[in-house]
């Protein structure tokens, strides 16, 4: 049973960033169903942690919990790549919508095919929008490794996207 103070902090810290958390989890796992499980598990961990902590940087703190839950989840079960059909909202122009959806799917597949460490680093940069130093701290990796992982992730995605053109 959680204390009321922890619940209040949870409502202030976690609920406003639920969309970001889901997006991050979906990126890291590659599918929506796992992402839901992970966000829910992360929420439980966050609520327990809030009994005794008041994070200084709430959004970064919460997303770090989601990331850890995702990574331990990935370690437990082999990642499956299932892609749903709703990656991109269809626009008013059906042809353009079809092309956009196709590109979105290709990109999602490409991201899902990256090794976990590269995918994580890229997610920290592009979704959490951390700078190199912050990424190094979050992943406990040297700065140079962060930069080379980013470069490798981007090179791999560019290559896949170009190969499909």
């Amino acid at each position, binding site marked *: 049973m959680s204390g009321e103070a922890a619940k209040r902090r949870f409502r202030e810290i976690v609920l406003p960033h*639920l969309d970001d958390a889901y997006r991050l989890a979906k990126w890291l796992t590659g599918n929506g169903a796992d992402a839901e499980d992970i966000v829910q598990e992360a929420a439980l961990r966050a609520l327990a942690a809030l009994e005794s902590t008041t994070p200084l940087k709430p959004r970064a703190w919460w997303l770090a919990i989601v990331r850890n839950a995702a990574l331990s989840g990935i370690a437990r079960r082999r990642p499956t790549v299932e892609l749903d059909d709703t990656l991109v909202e269809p626009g008013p122009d059906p042809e353009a919508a079809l092309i956009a959806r196709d590109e979105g799917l290709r990109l999602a597949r490409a991201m899902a095919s990256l090794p976990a460490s590269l995918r994580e680093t890229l997610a920290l940069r592009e979704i959490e929008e951390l700078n190199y130093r912050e990424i190094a701290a979050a992943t406990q990796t040297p700065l140079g490794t962060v930069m080379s992982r980013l470069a490798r992730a981007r090179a791999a995605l560019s290559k896949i996207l170009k190969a499909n053109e």
Partner: protein
Amino acid sequence: MNDDATLRAQMALDGELDAANQLAFERELERSPELATHYAELVALREAIRAQGAGETAPQALRARVAALAAPARRWPLRPAALAATLALAAALAGFGAGRWRGDPTLPTLVAFYQRAALSGQPVDVASSDRHTVKPWLAARAPFGALAPDLAEDGFPLLGGRIDILDRRPIPTLVYRRREHLISVSELPLAQSGAGAATLEGYHVERWRDGERAYVAISDIDAAELAGFVNAFARKIAP
């Protein structure tokens, strides 16, 4: 292109170069078409990645489950003495924390109805996007009928309606949809509700009234979108 140039292009993209190096990079960009092409690819890739994630929201059921983890302990209904004390406290605190909930006792109940509806996956008793179906259904069950305006062209399709019981009285509640999110609007007797925006348990609440009745809209869409909904709703039902 060598690794060094690749890394510099990436640092420029990520805003990690200092001013002198950024300038040097931009000069190099003008001189080298190969570098310019590479940099353009990096920019395009970033845009594609961000476009893909943009606008994706957590599913409604997940939001409801997570919100339920931290729902405050149930404190209503209170005994009359405690209720009076709470209202007095709320009055004393009025003006503190503008836009926050100020003790209207119907709000926690209505928010709980919203949560239950979202959690159960059955937010309506009568499911129809046709106001001419929803309106008579509600009118037959509540002492004052819902107006059920059609807001589809404003981006809020009607999902249906249901009857909630508040203070032992049936009240009509309409449910609209915005992307994956629900918006509920309950119509109450005039005396029953205040006015203004509030945030309760992470849900946004808008209360307003016209000459005849009071309305309470609840949703987990952001406050600005909910205000847009309320505007559209009020405009449609204006005589």
